[in-house]
C-alpha cells in the first residue's frame, strides 16, 4: 500500500510545483514594464552598466568607441593609473569598457578661467558596426557650454545618450555639433524616457564631486579602468619624385623569370627610394 501511494504523492507534489511555476511566470510577465530598463537614472555610477553586463551578450571586454565633444579650447584629461593624464583638446576619441565608469577632468572652460568640472562617463551598451567602422561611428557625447556652467553653479546634470530608433526619428536634419536634447521633468526617470525613444548607450554625469586637496584617489577615479586612446593619423604631403635614372637606380631589381612564373618577387630589405 505504501509503495503504491508514494509515487502518487510525489507526482502530486510535482504537479503543484509546476502550477506554482506557471502562476509565478504569469505574474512576472504581467508585471513587467514596457521597457527593459528597470533602473533609475539616479543610481550610483557603474550600477546600471554592471547590471547590463549581467544580461549577457558580447559586452564584457569590448572597448566601445566614444567621441567626446566640447566647446572650442576645452581640455579633457582621463583618469589613468590613479591620476589624471595629460590634457588634450576636444574632441577626443576613446575606447571605453562597457560597465566601467570613467572620470574626466574638463578644464579651460570658456568664460570660466581656472575652474574645472569632473564629469563621469558610463557606457551601458555597444554598437555593432561593420568590421573596420568602429571608430568611424562612435557614440557621440557632447559637453555643452550650458551644461558645464550648470555644473560650475553646483547643479547636477544627468545626460543619457541614446541611439535613435529610425522608426521614431526626428524629421529634422542633424549637424555635426547639434545633438538634440530632451528634458526629463523632475521625478521622471531619464533612462525610461531614453528607452522609450531609442536604445540608451551611455550616461554622462556632470557636477557633484571634486577631488580632495591632495589629488584624486582611486575611489574618485573609479579604479582608473582601462581605456583606448585614438588619435587620427598624421598625414604629411609627399612630393612626387620626377621620373628619371635616379628613381630607377633606387628601385629593387626584379628578376623577370620569377615574375613571369608568378613566383614571389624577392625584395631587398632596407632599400630606400631617394
Amino acid at each position, binding site marked *: 500500500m505504501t509503495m503504491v501511494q*508514494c509515487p502518487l504523492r510525489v507526482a502530486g*507534489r*510535482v504537479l503543484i510545483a509546476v502550477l506554482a511555476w506557471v502562476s*509565478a511566470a504569469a505574474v512576472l510577465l504581467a508585471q513587467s514594464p514596457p521597457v*527593459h530598463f528597470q533602473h533609475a537614472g539616479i543610481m550610483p555610477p557603474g550600477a546600471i552598466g554592471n547590471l547590463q553586463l549581467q*544580461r549577457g551578450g558580447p559586452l564584457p571586454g569590448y572597448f566601445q568607441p566614444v567621441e567626446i565633444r566640447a566647446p572650442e579650447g576645452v581640455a579633457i584629461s582621463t583618469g589613468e593609473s590613479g591620476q589624471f593624464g595629460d590634457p588634450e583638446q576636444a574632441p577626443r576619441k576613446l575606447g571605453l569598457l562597457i560597465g566601467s565608469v570613467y572620470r574626466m577632468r574638463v578644464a579651460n572652460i570658456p568664460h570660466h578661467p581656472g575652474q574645472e568640472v569632473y564629469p563621469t562617463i558610463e557606457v551601458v551598451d555597444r554598437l555593432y558596426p561593420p568590421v573596420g567602422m568602429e571608430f568611424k561611428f562612435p557614440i557621440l557625447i557632447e559637453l555643452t557650454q550650458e551644461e558645464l556652467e550648470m555644473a560650475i553653479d553646483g547643479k547636477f*546634470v544627468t545626460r543619457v545618450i541614446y541611439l535613435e530608433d529610425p522608426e521614431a526619428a*526626428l*524629421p529634422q536634419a542633424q549637424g555635426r555639433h547639434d545633438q538634440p536634447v530632451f528634458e526629463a521633468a*523632475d521625478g521622471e526617470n531619464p533612462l525610461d524616457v531614453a528607452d522609450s525613444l531609442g536604445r540608451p548607450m551611455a550616461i554622462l554625469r556632470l557636477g557633484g564631486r571634486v577631488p580632495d586637496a591632495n589629488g584624486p584617489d582611486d575611489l574618485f577615479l573609479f579604479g582608473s579602468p582601462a581605456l583606448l586612446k585614438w588619435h587620427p593619423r598624421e598625414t604629411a604631403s609627399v612630393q612626387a619624385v620626377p621620373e628619371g635614372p635616379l628613381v630607377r637606380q633606387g628601385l629593387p631589381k626584379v628578376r623577370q623569370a620569377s615574375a613571369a612564373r608568378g613566383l614571389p618577387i624577392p625584395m631587398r630589405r632596407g632599400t630606400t627610394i631617394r
Partner: protein
Amino acid sequence: MRHGQNQRRITRTTLARTVFARALFARTLCAVGLAILPIALCSCRSMPRAKLAHAELAQRTGEAASATQAMHEEVLASDEQLMRAAETTPHIPAACLPDAAPPIPQGCYPPWSPPGIAGPWPLDEYLFDGGDRDIAATVDGERDVHGLELEDTVAVYDTIDGETKIKASNRVCLYAPRFAAVRQVSGVVQNEQRDQPIGVVRPLAPILHQDDQLVTTAVQPIQPEGEIGRKQPSIQRLSQAVIKVNSRLPIMALAGGFSPHEDFLAIRQGLFQEAERARLAEAVTAAIAWTHDAAVQVVLEGQQAVSVTGDQKAQATFRIDTPNSPCLRVLKVASTKNAKPGDIVDFTIRFDNLGDQTINKVVLIDNLTTRLEYVLGTAQSSRKAEFSTEENQGESLVLKWEFADPLPPGHGGLVRFHCKVR
C-alpha cells in the same frame, strides 16, 4: 524472537528514513525550481530589445539581400551603364571597406550577432530605403497606390490587356546610427518655504445693472417670386417582350446537309449536350482509328498553333500563344553603405521590362524614409519622364517618375537622385 522484532524495527526505521529523505529531496527540488524560474524568466525578458524585436525582420532582410545580390549580378552582366553605377554603389552592407581606424580589441568575442540571424543587425543602427515593408502595396483600377509606407519603392505599370500591376524594388541598407540625449538637471540643495498669508481678500458684490434697448430694425421677409412646379414625367418605362429566344445558325455551306454521323449538336451548332455523350464517344473512337500520325497542321494568323487537347482525337483544339507574361524588374542601389548625419547619398533605380509584352504607363514611386531628405534638383532619368514630389507622413518626400512612352520588352531605364542623411 527478539532478534526478529529488532530486525523488523530496523527495517521500518530504514524505510521511514528513506521515505522522509525522498520527500525532503522532492521539496528541495521544488524550492530550487521555484527560485530559479523567475530568474530565468527575468533574464529572458531582459534580453536586449533589439535582439528580440528585430530577429524576424533581420531574417527577412537577409533573404531579400541574397535575392537582391542575384538580381544585381544579372543586371551587371547585361548593362554596362549600371555596372559602372554599381561598382560605386554596393548595396549590401555585409562587407565593408577598411577604414583608417585601428582594429578594436575584441577580447574573446568576435563581432557578435544573434545566432540564426543574417543580414544587417541590429536594425536600429541602419537606415533602409526601397522594397515593400510591412503592409503590401497594392494598386487599384484607378491607379491609386495603397499601402505605400515609408521606405517603400514600387513601380506601377499597365499590361497590354489593361491590367495594372505593381512591383517593388529591392531594399537598400545604410549603416547610419544617430544619437540624441535625454537630460535631467537637479540642484544639489533645494529649499522651499511657504509664508503664512497675512491678508484676507474680501470680494465685493457686483452691482447688478441691466440695460435693455429697444429693437430698431426688423427683418422683412421677401415674397417668393417663383413656385416649385411639378412636371409630369414624360418618359415611361417600356417593357418589351423578348422576341428572339434562341438563334440557330446551321452551317449552310455544306452541300447536302449533314451526314448521319454528323448528327450532333456539337457538330452542327457547337453545342454540347450530355445526352449525346455516349454516341459522340463512339464517333470519336472511330475517328481516332482512322487518324494518321501526320495530323492536320494548323496555322493561325501566321503562327504555328499547338494542340491543346492532343491531335490523336477527333475533337483536337488548337491555339496560339499570345504574349501575356508581363514582368518588370526594379533594382535600387546606393552610393555608399554607411553615412553620417549630413552626408549626401546617391540612389539609382534601374527598371527593366523582362516580360514578353510592351508595358505602358510605367510610374516609379519612392517613398523616402524620415531620415532621408531629397536634394532638390538632383532627379535624373534616362527616359522621358514627368517628375513630381509630394510630402509624406514622415515629413520627407514621395518621389514619382511617370513615363509616358511605352516600354518594349528588353528595354529599361535609370533614374537617379541625391539624398541628404538627416
